[in-house]
């Protein structure tokens, strides 16, 4: 029984809850909120979850090696500030460089023994302060190409859709088709054993933190383009929402177990909660409270131990 389902889902962390939750949510909303299935609303949901999805995929990488990155929301915010503050031609390279620097700082700190939560809490606080010092409120001019890239549509599908597909494809290729992907599963499973097989944790772990920060930068670029304005607190919710999303998707924060599909399903679940409550006219505060309950419930129903990790 246990063994069979473990074999079916392997190290993906997926289970009936992670898969069933968004489906159930979808069915409920389709039944009770008439406008839920309208094309416009589906497009809305897609728009709403795109940035979170990109961040959650970054968070997934860090979670797979047993870390956590709560600075990623501040990276989103600071990216937004950078985009509207520097020379438009340099905006994107500057933002990407920022992501690399933050990721290296986080990754090196963790490698030298700082707990990931403390390390990224420090950079979260630091970067948020920096963003607010630089730009006290929302405003600024967003370079036109970025607005175009975030808001245009092609072949009848909105840009958000393509951003999602690109992010999912990139994460999937990285995790499932490269040595790097296999090795981060190995390191997350047991870094010492991986070391005895000749796989050292240092570089892959560092790369995971850098990639997570870069995911924050990409999400920040997308979001800034979409709202056509810089906002120094724009990313604040993403730090923890991304952790919620991957946890709902069955990713184990102790490392070694998780999947791109899980991160996507968890993000969709969160997006449907927000959208559904909105459609049903429920207070957003209530929806936050519900998310908390749902997270605890979903985690409790998931298999606590997957394949011995």
């Amino acid at each position: 029984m246990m063994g069979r389902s473990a074999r079916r889902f392997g190290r993906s962390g997926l289970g009936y809850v992670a898969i069933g939750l968004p489906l159930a949510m979808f069915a409920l909303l389709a039944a009770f909120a008439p406008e839920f299935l309208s094309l416009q609303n589906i497009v809305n949901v897609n728009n709403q979850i795109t940035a979170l999805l990109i961040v959650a995929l970054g968070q997934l990488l860090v979670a797979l090696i047993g870390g956590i990155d709560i600075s990623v929301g501040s990276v989103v915010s600071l990216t937004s500030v950078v985009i509207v503050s520097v020379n438009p031609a340099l905006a994107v390279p500057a933002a990407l460089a920022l992501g690399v620097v933050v990721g290296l700082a986080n990754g090196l700190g963790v490698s030298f023994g700082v707990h990931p939560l403390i390390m990224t809490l420090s950079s979260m606080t630091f970067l948020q302060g920096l963003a607010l010092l630089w730009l006290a409120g929302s405003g600024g001019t967003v370079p036109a190409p970025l607005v175009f890239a975030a808001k245009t549509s092609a072949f009848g599908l909105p840009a958000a859709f393509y951003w999602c597909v690109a992010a999912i494809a990139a994460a999937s290729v990285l995790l499932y088709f490269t040595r790097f992907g296999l090795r981060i599963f190995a390191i997350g499973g047991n870094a010492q054993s991986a070391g005895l097989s000749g796989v050292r944790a240092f570089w892959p772990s560092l790369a995971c933190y850098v990639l997570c920060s870069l995911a924050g930068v990409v999400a920040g670029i997308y979001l800034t383009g979409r709202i056509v304005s810089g906002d120094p607190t724009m990313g604040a919710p993403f730090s923890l929402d991304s952790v919620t999303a991957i946890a709902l998707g069955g990713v184990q924060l102790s490392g070694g177990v998780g999947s791109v599909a899980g991160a996507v399903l968890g993000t969709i679940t969160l997006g449907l909660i927000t959208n559904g409550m909105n459609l049903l006219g429920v207070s957003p505060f209530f929806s936050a409270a519900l998310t908390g309950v749902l997270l605890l419930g979903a985690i409790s129903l998931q298999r606590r131990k997957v394949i011995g990790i």
Partner: protein
Amino acid sequence: MPPASNDCEIEFRNISKRFGPIRALTDVSFVGRRGSVHAVTGENGAGKSTLIKILAGVHPPDAGEILRDGQPIRFQGPADARAKGVSTVFQELTLLPNLTVAENLFLGREPRRAGFIDRGEMRRRAREILGHVGVELDVDDMCGDLTISEQHLIEIAKGAAAPSRVIIYDEPSAALDAPGVEKLVRLIEEQKAAGKLVFYISHRLDEIFRLCDVTTVLKDGQHVATRPTRELTRESLVSLMVGRELGQLYPRRSARSGAPAISVNDLAINATAARVSFEIKRGEILGLAGLEGQGQREIVRGLVGLVPHAAGSVRKHDAAGETKIGEAIVASVRAGVGFVPEDRKSEGLYLPLSIEQNIGLGMLRSASMSSRARIDKTRVKTLMREMNVRARDEKQSVGSLSGGNQQKVMIGRWLAAGVDVLIVEEPTRGVDVGAKAEIYRLLREFADAGGAVVITSSELTEHIGLCDRILVVRDRAIVAEIDGAGATEEIVMRHALMSAPGQGAST
């Protein structure tokens, strides 16, 4: 004169290694030759594992060098050693539970095509390797779903899969079932025929005599002998390993045993286990022997109340009367029962604290919470002298002591507390031979002074050499009581292994 120079694959030259204050290896030199199976043996703690970890690239040696084909060779890590043709099957499992069999076999050297992992190729080659070793498993199974024995076979397959000239097996048969051992033997013979050098680390005499061409014996981190196995007999090998007669290691048994100190009635460690009853008498050392994991540990831990038991009672008898113990460890300690856990570093000692504080803790047993914590320093010093604790002074931290001295401190705490019953798990695990004799003497003196001692041990010779009575535990039940003086390994093993017809696991 054999052509020694051209079949010499690996030469250890004056290898030394220390871990903190412990000298794991001192000046070890010997040669391993191509196309041979080379046993490295010795008692627990003799330095076998350290030596092969140096060859496997896990630890660098402090001094000395390894030569291959006469050239000094240094490894930057396990991966480097493997790349240079030395592959190792470690004693502890190194498989990742969240990777498939195929992924585990190729982790660190995954086949690639156009930059991406070539999973088809990986599966195909993994099937080939498994077929070669004779393991019938799906290469897409997650390793975490396999049994321990299957996992060890995969571990062995992993060592065989790497293209290497030297293969090291560290206690490979410990977790294998009988068919697994046969597969291993076949594989090793094949590797030998292919001209490889196989190091076989084990202390199982049967396997050494069956498999190995040459045997190197280590003792206390030093090289004792390297000889062709056919020139050795069991007796001569054992005396090389032990370096002394059993009689010298163990103290004299006491002739008398007194009134019962503890009586255990119908104790069941869980709802389905058999009920066990036995007495521990003053003046005796009682051993709970058996194969590992048969319930010895649970019985002694249930007896002191460290883990809850399902049924039964434990009473301690004193001159003043009797006390019911075994419900909670604190009550047992208060009644005068000291418990020395097998993992003294995490369950017993306070490693950063001094010897004085670790021993002195025992004196605080009867003090009330609000009284000042006073440690009788002269008593601590006397105890350290009596127990022959080797340390700079009583302020030295326990973490920097050797295993044997740590164990003495652990026992010293209970002596300071004035207990009259000692329950000791694995009294000499991680203790070198010299200190072993001292710990045995310490336990014997404690019993001679009217105390009672219970030990569990995975080393059979310890039961036979030390104990006055041995209770054999199998499947959570006591299946035999043997007089220590008349016990032999064979008698104890027979009871530990075999169930009488008609009374299997259901008892």
